[in-house]
């Protein structure tokens, strides 16, 4: 069966999504178990696949039995093996953690919600596993469409921000498709490895250069890279908890994976870094992204919105790291995909718990939370110090690689930006801790004098256990960073890049 892992990763969630939508009409209680079972199979297959890749190297799976480039093929190497495992595990943990909040927020629409949830995971896993540039676009469409639906379920301004996201996301996807179209005209192929083989003769062609630029800009829109980021904060803030803790950790990270795949596999580092002399300006752009993300986060008075601006700064980390053009920076960027997905999941799950109990994430709502929800806040602290970059949490190590890469490339602006953003994160998170810790819980009945100690009112166990698992993973990944880099990421980067 292990030969079929690449197909199972995508096919099992797809079939389950259809079964869930049927179950939604027959008996709603079946939806959740099917969701968890499907995501567990996907997670099991992707971890199994990662271990197979570690043993055997690149795995090719021919869909429909046709040889590439006639048919579509899946290529699983160390790079997407790692990202697949992260995506499927994050999706599984979030599905378990958000059961209660889904039941609370839209009890009569559980079936369609889980259907879109699982379809979205299918789309994200499909984007990562595929070795075909057009197949990637189709899965991108699925991930995007379902994402718009999941975000628009948020009340209030949710639908409006989802509409805004829809416009931007559609433009981004169109740009990517246009770029693939240009590549197809020039090479006649859609298979990534095949295109990479044909391109060297065409490196001087203007059309190939344009294809590269259009694809890159499209992917940047999708990942909310700084000047193109405007859709992200509102969309993620107004989404329901269950959606935002799926979409915030995964979508931007998967798009960064796509960018790295474009750089490393389709266009090769030789073309991306040497023939096109654009690395320096792009790293400067990411410096601006980091600064702006950090500064805009400072002015927010809503915890969830503050975190969305931190995501924008983190996107700057990874784009900059990938474009430094050296091995250490690329290692940092790839490692940060995994780490950032996990720590974003950690803080968003914690916020989900808070919203579940307090019904809001404005700073005023957070007062006295340490006493009220000590376990949630404990996990939130671990996520926060990982985002700041304190050892032994994983955030420290990827930031370390990024800074080393910046020094090696002689790009001190990027180094300064990373340090600045870490300091701002310290300010941001300690301000939140202060509000949660010191100020008394506001008493709505106006009895300002007699302060009853607010009774503990913690989120349900099903929400806490996944949160603790994520927090533990943050520390574990930090402790095993050396193994991850030496056994996985080392082989994910082509030898040519030094």
């Amino acid at each position, binding site marked *: 069966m292990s030969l079929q892992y690449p197909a199972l990763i995508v*096919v099992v969630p797809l079939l389950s999504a259809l079964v869930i939508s049927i179950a939604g*009409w027959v008996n709603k209680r079946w939806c959740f178990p099917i969701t968890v079972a499907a995501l567990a199979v996907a997670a099991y297959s992707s971890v199994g696949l990662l271990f197979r890749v570690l043993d055997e190297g690149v795995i090719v799976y021919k869909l*429909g039995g046709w040889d590439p480039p006639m048919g579509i093929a899946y290529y699983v190497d160390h790079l997407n093996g790692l990202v697949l495992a992260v995506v499927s595990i994050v999706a599984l943990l979030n599905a378990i953690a958000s059961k209660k909040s889904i039941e609370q927020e839209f009890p009569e629409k559980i079936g369609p919600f889980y259907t879109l949830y699982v379809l979205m995971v299918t789309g994200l896993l499909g984007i990562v596993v595929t070795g075909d540039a057009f197949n990637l676009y189709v899965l991108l469409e*699925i991930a995007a*469409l*379902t994402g718009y639906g999941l975000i628009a379920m948020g009340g209030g301004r949710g639908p409006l921000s989802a509409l805004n996201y829809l416009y931007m996301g559609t433009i981004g996807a169109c740009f990517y498709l246009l770029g693939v179209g240009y590549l197809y005209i020039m090479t006649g*192929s859609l298979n990534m490895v095949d295109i990479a083989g044909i391109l060297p003769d065409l490196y001087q062609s*203007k059309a190939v250069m344009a294809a590269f630029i259009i694809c890159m800009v499209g992917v940047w829109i999708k990942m909310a890279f700084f000047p193109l980021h405007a859709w992200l904060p509102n969309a993620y803030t107004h989404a329901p908890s269950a959606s935002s803790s799926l979409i915030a950790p995964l979508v931007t990270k998967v798009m960064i994976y796509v960018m790295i795949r474009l750089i490393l596999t389709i266009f090769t580092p030789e073309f991306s870094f040497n023939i096109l002399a654009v690395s320096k300006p792009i790293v400067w752009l990411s410096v601006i992204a980091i600064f702006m993300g950090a500064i805009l986060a400072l002015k927010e008075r809503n915890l969830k919105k503050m975190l969305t601006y931190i995501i924008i700064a983190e996107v700057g980390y990874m784009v900059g790291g990938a474009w430094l053009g050296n091995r250490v920076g690329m290692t940092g960027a790839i490692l940060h995909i995994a780490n950032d997905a996990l720590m974003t999941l950690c803080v968003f799950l914690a916020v989900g718990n808070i919203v579940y109990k307090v019904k809001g994430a404005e700073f005023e709502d957070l007062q006295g939370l340490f006493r009220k929800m000590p376990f949630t806040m404990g996990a939130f602290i671990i996520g926060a110090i990982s985002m700041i970059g304190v050892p032994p949490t994983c955030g420290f190590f990827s930031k370390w690689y990024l800074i080393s890469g910046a020094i090696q490339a002689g790009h001190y602006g990027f180094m300064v930006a990373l340090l600045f953003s870490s300091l701002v994160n310290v300010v941001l998170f300690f301000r939140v801790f202060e509000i949660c810790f010191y100020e008394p819980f506001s008493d709505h009945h106006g009895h300002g004098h007699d302060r009853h100690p607010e009774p503990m009112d913690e989120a349900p166990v099903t929400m806490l256990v996944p949160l603790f698992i994520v927090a533990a993973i943050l520390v574990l990944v930090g402790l095993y960073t050396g193994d991850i880099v030496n056994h996985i990421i080392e082989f994910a980067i082509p030898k040519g890049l030094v």
Partner: protein
Amino acid sequence: MKIIGLIVAILVGALLVYAAADFPAWSDPASPASTYLSPHFIEKTMEETSVPNIVTAVLADYRGFDTMFETTVIFSAGMAVFLLLRTFRREEPEARHYRHVLTGVTLRVKEGGELPPSDDFERIDSLWTPHDLIIKTVCRLLIPFIQLFALYVIAHGHHSPGGGFQGGVILGASIILLAISQDLRTAVKRMAEKLDALLCSVGVLIYAGTGALCLLLGLNFLDYSALASVLHVDSIMARSHGILIVEIGVGIAVMCTMIWIYNNVSSGGKYNQGL
């Protein structure tokens, strides 16, 4: 802001046109797109899949995996519209309106009140526009022929332009025409919401399930030649039959999604008389 937008649009357009200078000439027989993979498809499709229509073979077999996900895209769109628009919590109106079809008399029935037992009443909304007799009759006459043509388009995709997507859209359009020419309640009576939603999933399930069956029979996902042992034909013919099976799945999924989206959008998720 408008001026910035205009400048950006012009710059992007200029880049695309500038880059297009390197393209091969129009209909150049020596261009990469027509020399690299196309000869294989043109020469080998009949031999490898026994489907005379090359486009169908590329769409549903060589790149069948993409097509499966295109069907899923349509399914997700329908599902997203349903998730967002459908309102299950009814704001119960104080009174319902019924129209006596033969006399045109409108009855207003208060909450808890009952109608006289008769089939001559139809439920209407308070804002009701009368049906036009000519439109109603012409559409009733047309719809069966539209549906027959749709089935032909689905079934004949192997030989002529057509296939599941096109046929499915035509089938869906026939039901939507019924909803437009009469009202949504009439159409939903023919095609209930639950049936429609279930068929949506079943359609995609036929496609993905065929792929999974190939996987269970020991070959790769969507490798239709594995169906040979089930269908009792040789492995080349099995590919042709596999394509027909998935086209039927696509047809069902597309038809139901079209109807589903129309129903939800036209009635704002309330499933009243619509539009």
